[in-house]
């Protein structure tokens, strides 16, 4: 069993970290034009603030669809690693997609869940199950065996490095604080989509 499969710690033993810091750590490990799909809201905003890459897709609406979009990209481009950054509230809205991902089992897909237990962008209301639901246990139950809480920043780095080797699908959950995102995305869906497609080599130029 790899460390990711043993899952030595539960949600409540994981250190509360910062989303922007972890986003920068993750993006810093990307050396092969990996695609990154940012979920709606703060996941997106911190991805934008971490440095704009043409392989980033910033999802502006359609809450809950970051993981399905990432699955589609992963199927279309099996040689490119695809990472999606999603909030706990967004994931709860579309839990079924974890079973779909597990069943398709794309080796090149990594799901990162930022869990602060709140709908931060709408006024910090608690998400359903914030105090009782365990996203890693849910993901494992859905069939994503390689799912783990990151105990701290250095373990987050290790889990990301391990996931990028391509034995996925994998899910990394991180407890995060309620600090606001560092930036906000431009809100031009066509430009975001077009730049992303060029970044993936689908369009010329």
């Amino acid at each position, binding site marked *: 069993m790899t460390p990711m499969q043993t899952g030595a710690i539960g949600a409540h033993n994981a250190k509360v970290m910062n989303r922007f810091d972890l986003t920068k750590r993750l993006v810093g490990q990307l050396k092969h034009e990996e*695609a990154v*799909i940012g979920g709606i809201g703060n996941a997106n905003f911190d991805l934008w603030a971490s440095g704009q890459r043409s392989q980033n*897709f910033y*999802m*502006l*609406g*359609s*809450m*809950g*669809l*970051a*993981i*399905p*979009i*990432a*699955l*589609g*990209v*992963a*199927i*279309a*481009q099996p040689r490119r690693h695809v990472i999606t950054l999603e909030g706990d509230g967004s994931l709860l809205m*579309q839990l*079924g*997609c974890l*079973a*779909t991902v597990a*069943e*398709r089992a794309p080796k090149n897909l990594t799901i990162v869940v930022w869990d602060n237990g709140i709908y931060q962008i709408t006024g910090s209301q608690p998400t359903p199950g914030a105090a009782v639901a365990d996203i890693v246990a849910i993901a494992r139950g859905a069939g994503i065996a390689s799912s783990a809480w990151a105990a701290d920043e250095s373990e987050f780095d290790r889990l990301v490095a391990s996931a990028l080797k391509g034995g996925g699908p994998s899910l990394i959950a991180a407890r995060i604080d309620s600090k606001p995102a560092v930036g906000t995305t431009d809100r031009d*869906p*066509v430009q*975001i*989509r077009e730049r*992303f*497609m060029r970044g*993936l*080599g*689908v369009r010329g130029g």
Partner: protein
Amino acid sequence: MTDIQTRATAWHEVVLATLKANDVSLIVYVPDRVFTPLIKAIHADPFFTVFAATREEEALGIISGAWMGGLRAAALMQTSGFATIPNALASLVVPSQIPALIFVSERGTLGEFNLGQALVCKTMRPVLDSLAVENITITRQDELAFVVDRSIKQAIATQAPVTFILSPLLTGGKVFEA
């Protein structure tokens, strides 16, 4: 498309052949009784990557991602499933100009036995029209290949989604055993 029209004998064979001719190779669906022969035939053809999603909006997300990654993809669903996707259409597919190819098996009309299906059917075209999403109701098999082939090409050329509503007049629909 004349070859497809003359060779094929059933509506689902025409749809399958037209998808192949247009290199639409990823199919994501939420099941429907009337679409079962189409879904079975797609599963049986190694040209396609095909699987079920848990919700119709999930299917839209997957085919949107696939298209951005360079793969042509379609979603199959029934009328009631369509009623779950207006947000995904209005906040992802339409503003991002993604040529999502959507096939809907039309329930709720021409012999429907479930009032819920009949009502939800009435919401479908107004939703599509209000978003200016091309939607075509197909009732005749002799027009099927032409309509689907040309509309897929238009969707991709104009970067706009299209919805094909397959009427019971084409498919036979779901029959109520009274």
